[in-house]
């Protein structure tokens, strides 16, 4: 029977592949999982929904052998098992693709797969794995250059390598943590087609996600978790998005568009911005736009069309090759360094939260206060005053409802995504900025946290700030925009008023006019 766990031959469809009973896991006095039952059938795609911190990832980490549960029973293909390490999980045919890929950048795709699947000598292994990889890629309909270095591959390609890696290791229970957070709609569709193919030959797939629409359209069953407990398991036909939202957050959250009541004069004017990156790729080809006081200008577009570079140019991280940026009342600000721009009233919510917005090893108070310290608050050059800093941070934590902060001296890296983002916003808004650049501020956040972020952006707009919201999520764009620009291939190819039809915008994004 142990062979069944490994084999890719169709297991008995509908029979439980994985059954967890009464799983409890605590960290200190925090109960991450509280008597959770979960079952996964052979041949199904099972969506696991919940807010950040609901326990989804912890539960799946228990399955993957990263955490040992305090108590509870696990069965794989009907046999009771104990999974005390990733090795065990692998031998049981369990494979997990983490949200942050576990790949070695300097290695090729093939070498990364080999690293995970040692088979005899290096040479033998290379041949065996190459065959197996080609086979797997074929079955899944993936096209991956096995000899390309990992850091040269795009994010979707890296994801494919991750999936091939675990399949070649013999995984029949496949756990995917937020797999589509990095994919465009079209890529996600292809991805799900491949996953469906895997399920049809008897594998089972767990899909950990925030996106209700994905769960509803691609999953066979949906389990909702909240506060470390399993709330409900249902078939997609039995529930709709509203019910799911309610199950996930415990209350009803409905966001409605609220257009600006007063759009003022232009605050930031950008004209003819051009930028070629260090690799010689032209990223910006004459971007022209203006932001008005009291409006949210949404820049829609598929990621990688120059959004990141535009943010870098606007915030002073990379001077543009040509073009100019003007700030009302200050004239030309092109090429000024970040500290100067911030002093003139620019704030930024970067897309890479832990990478560019926070220093995870430093405290909540420090991460909050650095903006103020740079602006000359919290003591002079000789002595930074910690006490007012901690007090201001504590006040901001209250005002912006940053949860999970036990003390201002806690490390910022311990905050969940939504709370980390709230902390970033608290800091960025504390200087009453006149221009706010927000790049995918609600990416990876649950419904409630995203709504809070949206609320803060609207509040800033109502304070007469000019907000540039760069987003790949059309729902978000339609919800918030007073004006919409579409970015494609380093240009703004179209502009629409708020409330424009979704399809019109979508067409401009992909270039089928």
């Amino acid at each position, binding site marked *: 029977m142990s062979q069944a766990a490994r084999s890719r031959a169709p297991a008995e469809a509908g029979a439980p592949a994985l059954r967890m009973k009464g799983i409890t896991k605590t960290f200190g006095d925090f109960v991450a999982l509280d008597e959770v039952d979960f079952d996964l059938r052979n041949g199904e795609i099972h969506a696991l929904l919940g807010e950040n911190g609901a326990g989804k990832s912890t539960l799946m980490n228990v399955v993957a052998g990263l955490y*040992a549960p305090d108590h509870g029973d696990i069965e794989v293909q009907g046999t009771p098992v104990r999974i005390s390490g990733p090795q065990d999980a692998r031998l049981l045919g369990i494979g997990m693709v983490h949200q942050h890929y576990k790949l070695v950048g300097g290695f090729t795709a093939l070498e990364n797969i080999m690293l995970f699947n*040692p088979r005899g000598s290096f040479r033998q292994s290379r041949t065996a794995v190459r065959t197996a990889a080609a086979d797997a890629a074929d079955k899944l309909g993936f096209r991956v250059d096995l000899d390309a270095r990992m850091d040269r591959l795009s994010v979707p390609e890296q994801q494919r390598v991750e999936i091939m890696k675990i399949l070649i290791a013999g995984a029949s229970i496949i756990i995917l943590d937020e797999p589509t957070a990095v994919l465009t709609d079209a890529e996600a569709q292809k991805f799900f087609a491949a996953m469906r193919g895997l399920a049809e030959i008897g594998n089972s797939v767990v899909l950990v996600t925030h996106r209700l629409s994905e769960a509803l359209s691609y999953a066979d069953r949906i389990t909702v978790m909240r506060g470390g407990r399993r709330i409900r398991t249902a078939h997609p036909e039995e529930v709709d998005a509203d019910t799911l939202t309610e199950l996930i957050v415990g209350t009803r959250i409905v966001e409605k568009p609220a257009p600006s009541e007063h759009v003022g004069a232009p605050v930031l004017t950008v004209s003819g911005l051009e930028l070629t990156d260090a690799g010689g790729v032209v990223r910006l080809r004459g971007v022209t736009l203006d932001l008005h006081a009291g409006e949210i200008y949404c820049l829609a577009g598929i990621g990688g069309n120059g959004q990141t570079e535009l943010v870098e140019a606007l915030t002073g*991280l990379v001077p543009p090759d040509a073009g100019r940026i003007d700030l009302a009342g200050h004239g030309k600000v092109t090429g000024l360094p970040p500290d100067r721009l911030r*002093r003139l009233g620019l704030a930024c919510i970067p897309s890479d939260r832990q990478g560019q917005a926070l*220093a995870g090893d430093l405290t909540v108070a420090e991460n909050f206060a650095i903006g103020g310290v740079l602006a000359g608050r919290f003591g002079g050059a000789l002595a930074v005053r910690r006490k007012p800093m901690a007090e201001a941070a504590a006040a901001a934590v209250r005002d912006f409802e940053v949860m999970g902060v036990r003390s201002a001296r806690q490390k910022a890296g311990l905050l969940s995504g939504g709370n980390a983002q709230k902390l970033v916003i608290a800091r960025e808004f504390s200087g009453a900025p006149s221009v706010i650049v927000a790049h995918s501020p609600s990416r990876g956040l649950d419904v409630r946290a995203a709504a809070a972020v949206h609320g803060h952006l609207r509040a800033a707009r109502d304070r007469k700030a000019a907000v540039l919201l760069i987003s790949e999520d059309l729902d978000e764009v339609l919800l918030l925009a007073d004006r919409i620009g579409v970015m494609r291939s380093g240009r703004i190819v179209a502009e629409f008023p708020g409330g424009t039809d979704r399809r019109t915008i979508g067409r401009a994004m992909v270039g089928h006019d």
Partner: protein
Amino acid sequence: MTEAQDLPGRAAAAPATGRRRGRWPHLALEVRQHMPGPQQALMLGASLVAGIAISTLVLVAAGVPAGNLLDEFVISIFTRPRNLANVLVYTAPLVIVGLAAAVAFRARFWNIGIEGQMIFGAIGATLIANHDIGPEGARLYLMAATAAFAGMVWMLVPALLKLRLEVNEIISTLLLNYVAFNFLLFLLYGPWKDPQSAFPHSKMYDAAERLTRIGFFNVDTSIYLAFALAVGCFLLLVVSRFGFLLNFVHANPKMARAMGVRVAVLVLSAALVSAALAGVAGFVISAGIDNRMTQSFFVGYGFSGILIGFLARNNPVLVVFFAALIAVLMVAGQGLQVFYQIPSSMVLLIQAIIVICAAASEFLIRYRLRLVR
């Protein structure tokens, strides 16, 4: 069902079963969410104790009677004033090089060139001494300042190479040590050879060019200087705005830059302060211990400085503590060499054991070991 194949390395080929090691209790690793500060300190303390225990075993194996170790390392140090004085004499330069390492490491600038900067510091000080520049009353201050300046000049090369051309500073600072050393040999065998003895060291410093003794055996004022510099570094790294921002450069340079921190300026400043400290350390040894510039005054201090900075986690207060600990080791090690014919490399071995244990505690802070039954 086949049972319990414990064959590491062949696991992938073995039939799958979760009961592979099921019957035997074994250790499993688990990522920790967070460990509170006091517990971390305790962990570091415990690992130091473990390091000392292993070192004890090594020394006993090398032929030092176990019963004498306590005497050599603790009792003789703290009961015989002469030994205590020796510890203080070594402590002063160790504190300064430890601070040099700590300041640079705070900026993630891996200054491996402390010895080269010490050499240039000593050369700067000796230049002033040899040519009797400045009034005698200000001579020592001038020597110290020149030493600091010379250290910085030597650092300018790797620092600018890193900031302008992204040349790895580990390589450049390390290699410049050899350049500095050969320049030192050139001076000592050439223009600066002692005219009286014709030995390859500089001529003896005049009385006004030597650090004054404080009246406790051979301990000189460098110990005061070391403590003052430690306080200075504490103010710089922990209290000042520079230190606050430097923490961000250390924790996440990308984020610091995006927030508007002038990262390059901060890194350059930290590297220069580090080199200035190293230069002063060279001056302290020359003007305090040797009374001249010798051709080997710096040997071992670069490594010790890095080690102290690492053990102290770049904290100036802890630097003082660990510098004293290393000084005790050095003095006790000399005793062992004399009385038990233990090779001098044994002292380095013990230093290494302690460092490895401290590094291991880092692992236990990040991961939890669980006994699985």
